[in-house]
């Protein structure tokens, strides 16, 4: 599995220094083709910062990271997105006023060919492309919740949390990325919704061949059901890695979450 698949992403000694506070203090991390990796750690350990750094939202202050052997250090978010990395957000960054369809179409920005002037002078090409992309959006929604398809032109803000999360995942998948980063997808969900979510994530992998998923979570049931291997970090540094069982039983990990034994 891990050994025969290609390594598509790695970071070396990745650092993120916020005016003296090292949110990331040297992360060495790898992602291989077609795998699902979990990233866990207590609050403030640097998980979301890691996502923000590798998507270019924050610029790393030290170390490096590569995608397909190309350095992404210092690149802007839009450049990194073009390479094939997409993500979802802890606080669900959807455009609530826009329709379901619009939100998913945003994920296909890199596939658009009908540009500024086509909007005026070649609308036939534009509309054909819109219809095409809409088909893909419908296909994706069909996988997760066919009941959403009639709501394609409703504002996404009207949907319940679990469906919004699904739309977000569809948006992340729509552009056919190589890596999808899921940032605490179960945040704000009921236990029933979380169970549905775990199925959704499995569906992501079965729908798209050749995509790797990295998932940050606090809910351990999600991590254990979805990831093939897990990495734990604390204070911006890796403290354990392996299978879920190995990591969750690791003394440093237990200490990080539960505190030292008195």
């Amino acid at each position, binding site marked *: 599995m891990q050994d025969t698949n290609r390594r598509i992403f790695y970071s070396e000694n990745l650092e993120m220094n916020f005016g003296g506070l090292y949110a990331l203090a040297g992360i060495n991390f790898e992602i291989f083709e077609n795998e699902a990796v979990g990233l866990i750690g207590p609050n403030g350990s640097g998980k979301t910062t890691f996502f923000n750094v590798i998507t270019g939202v924050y610029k790393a202050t030290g170390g490096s990271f590569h995608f397909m052997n190309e350095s992404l250090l210092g690149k802007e978010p839009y450049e990194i997105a*073009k390479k094939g990395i997409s993500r979802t957000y802890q606080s669900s960054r959807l*455009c*609530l006023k826009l329709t379901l369809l*619009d939100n998913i179409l945003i994920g296909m920005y890199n596939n658009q060919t*009908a540009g500024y002037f086509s909007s005026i002078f070649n*609308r036939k090409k534009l*509309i054909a492309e819109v219809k095409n992309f809409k088909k893909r959006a419908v296909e994706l929604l069909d996988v997760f919740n066919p009941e959403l398809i009639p709501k394609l032109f409703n504002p996404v803000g009207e949907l319940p949390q679990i469906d919004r999360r699904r739309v977000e995942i569809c948006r992340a998948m729509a*552009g056919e990325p190589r890596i999808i980063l899921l940032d605490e997808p179960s945040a704000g969900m009921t236990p029933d919704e979380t169970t549905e979510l775990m199925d959704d994530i499995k569906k992501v992998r079965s729908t798209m061949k050749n995509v790797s998923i990295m998932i940050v979570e606090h809910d351990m049931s999600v991590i254990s059901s979805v990831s093939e291997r897990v990495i734990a970090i604390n204070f911006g540094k890796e403290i354990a890695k392996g299978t879920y069982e190995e990591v969750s039983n690791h003394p440093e990990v237990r200490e990080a979450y539960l505190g030292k034994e008195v």
Partner: protein
Amino acid sequence: MKRTFDYISILKIATVQVVIFFLVMIFFNIESVWTLIIALALVVALVVLSKAYGKQSASIIEFFTANKPTVLTVLIVLLFLYPLISPLMIRQNTYWLLVLIQTGIYMILALGLNIQLGSTGVLNLAVAAFYGIGGYTAGLLSLRLGVPTIITLPLGGIVAALFGMLLYVPLYKTKGHYMALVTLAFGIMIVLALDNTEFTGGPQGLMAIPELKFFGYSFLSKPGGLHFYTNYYYFVLVLVLLSVLVSYWFYNSWVGLTLSSIRDDEIAAKCFGVNANIWKGIAFITGNVMIGIAGAVYAHMIGFISPPNFSLAESLLIVAMVILGGLDNILGIIIGTIILSILPEKMRVITEYRVFLYGILLIVIPMFRPGGLLPFKPRKYHASVAEG
């Protein structure tokens, strides 16, 4: 598929619109304050009734929306017929013609601003300054260098866009409050500079700017004995229709979607490949071209312009038209412009209180109806996309 013409529906729609058409002209004619108040009270009553009889009014609105091509065709025909009929029906025809032309210019300004503010979320409080730059460009070129108006108009737009690019760096480096303040300060600077530079005529501005002239036809001539404003009326009408079309097309395209994504969540948009800086620049340029051209037309039509025409107050008026209508809501903006441009002209009686009421309006809209007049419309791109 051969389209069959539902003659009964067409007749119904046309009749309603023609009746409204004549009512509007009667409205223009009303001189007595009391008749005016009664007329406005009737309109308000109508609105209230339509809310009370929700179902019936909803079905009426649906009927009109379903027959959009007919509604639009009749509307455009009526708009073209107006200057031919109005001299017969309206007492102060010349005055109202000018008001309508001015309203048309405001519509172009508001639609241009909408691309920046409504679609992309860039609060451009210097919109009147760019309007002025368009006007001064056209005025200076035609007055001092005799440049033909067929060139001054697009140049007005281009120069306004170039000046807009002075704001490119601030545009992507600042957000929210700060961006508003930058454009505010910039607008004030431009007007102050215009006021203090002899080259632009200083506080007196430019005078005796030549009229529009295309292929030898001067807009000061009287077509068929009608007032020369009629020339400008048709010209501005065409420009307004073009602006509406272009706005509609941009909105229902990848451009509109990208700009909306930047407005609603810039970071997420960037993480999906959108180079937000470039797009904000594109939106700003596009809007400014429209705004500058409107300024050029205004300069040629009125013949003189001066710095007070393009003050912060004027910018706020145009911003109010966009906000009242609803961000990115083309129909709403058209209606908002009509309300803020035509109504005050009619309310001459309250002319003294006009600015005061306008201030109250600016307080009340954000407090009670920040979404604008009309309800939100989902982006459909094209009728064929929504089916299937």
